[in-house]
């Protein structure tokens, strides 16, 4: 039996970070999965949910249930969108929504917990800092197996901003801390945070790149 996964790319990655999803597809293929992309997909509804509009968020959630019917595992490069589908879909009621919620996986968790791989055969010869996601340790375990990668410590992510809430942009102090760490790349698992960091690095003319974990794992 072939192992199948369906990509949930998310609207933000689709439009602004396509390379992260392409890299994710490459890595999943490399570890032995048949990867499909269902082009009917759009958005999980998180943006409007966070703005307080439950009604449209649930409409988007119900649409996702239709799109991913019968798709098997649904894997996404966004920790936040994975959490939205996993937590908010069951609130909609109905077996189909709950069933989809149970098979949505954030990329790093999928690799570690379902595919059960940590070494995906990646090589990335750069010093990096990693932006952890709360409660997910798969990212670090996967990075630890990347050849040539030097993981530098950077404990304090205070001031990394938020996206839809736009409460504050990335703090200049955080950009300085990253620059002083000696890293050439920031690696993360949340596309929106990475986009904010990209913006902040560009604005302050720092030669640092923000990459999704999948982009690092895809390189060899």
């Amino acid at each position, binding site marked *: 039996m072939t192992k199948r996964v369906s990509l949930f790319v998310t609207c933000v990655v689709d439009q602004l970070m396509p390379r992260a999803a392409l890299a994710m597809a490459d890595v999943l293929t490399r570890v032995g999965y048949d990867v499909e992309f269902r082009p009917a997909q759009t958005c999980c509804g998180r943006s409007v949910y966070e703005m307080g509009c439950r009604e449209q968020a649930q409409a988007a959630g119900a649409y996702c249930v239709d799109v991913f019917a019968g798709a098997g595992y649904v894997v996404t490069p966004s*920790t936040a969108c994975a959490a939205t589908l996993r937590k908010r879909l069951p609130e909609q009621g109905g077996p189909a929504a709950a069933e989809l919620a149970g098979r949505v996986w954030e990329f790093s968790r999928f690799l570690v917990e379902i595919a059960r791989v940590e070494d995906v055969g990646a090589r990335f010869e750069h010093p990096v800092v990693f932006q952890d996601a709360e409660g997910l340790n798969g990212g670090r375990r996967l990075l630890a197996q990347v050849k040539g990668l030097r993981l530098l410590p950077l404990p*304090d992510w205070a001031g990394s901003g938020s996206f*839809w809430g736009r409460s504050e942009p990335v703090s200049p102090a955080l950009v300085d801390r990253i620059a002083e760490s000696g890293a050439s790349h920031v690696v993360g698992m949340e596309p929106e945070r990475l986009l904010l960091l990209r913006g902040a690095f560009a604005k302050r003319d720092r030669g640092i790149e923000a990459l999704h974990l999948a982009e690092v794992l895809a390189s060899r």
Partner: protein
Amino acid sequence: MSTPATVRHHVLTNLDHYLTELEEQLTAKGGKVVYLRSVEEVADSIELLAREKGWPLPADLRQQMERLEPGVAEYLLGGPREAGGSLLLAAGELRIASAAYLIAEAGAVCLIGPPADGAGPRMQIVVAGIDRVLPRMRDVAVFLPLLAGEGSVQFLTGPRRAGEWDGPEELYVYLVDGGRIPLLADPAKRDVLRCVRCGACLSSPPDGSPVVCPVGIDLENIPGLLRRELPPETSGWKYRLWGFVMRRPRLYEFAGRMLRSFWREEWGVPEPPAKSFRQTWREEGRK
């Protein structure tokens, strides 16, 4: 059992009692307690004291005071408590420090940061929000781990007494409202005053997974609380349009193409990709 959450809750519901006790204890030992409304009053008061002594003050005293006691709104927005929130002025004669905690029963001030050299300054001013008080000395043990690793811990129990080796000749404790009283008066929001800025919540991702707040603030409830106060207009055409578009993938793709550069500006992302993921996927003939 005393936990950070139960202690903070108890203090905030009995704040009048503990502030009175703190004032009595500190005053009995020769300290001076001053209640002030805002950081402006803090700076005014320091200027008066320094003028009496003939001590010069830096021109940016007000900005420096705002760093020590920014008021509760800025305080809650800030990062984890900065170590060594203190400054030394007038050639070491005057030290101004923000208190980590105040201990009511002992009439003591707990400072965290680099210790003062030698016998310390002649005049010590301690600035603290009125919520910083803890009932007893043993409560400090519950709270120090939250701010651990930030510097040495120092206790002041009044000015230097006859026969003592070190300590300031004069000790002022400035208790600042800074917007705390209105929060305290609001039962729904009072709990945010429990915050000691330990920084545990700052590691939370934007996906709303629960972070356990050490002082028991219901973090996930705060956005909802604020929304009830100022309900967002979510029935408007923009939301309906969004929902309409997001259920029509072709329309979504067209809108995405139109909006990508706008998104880029909004978030300051340098270069939008020439093609979306779906476009690339399609053109590469993948399934």
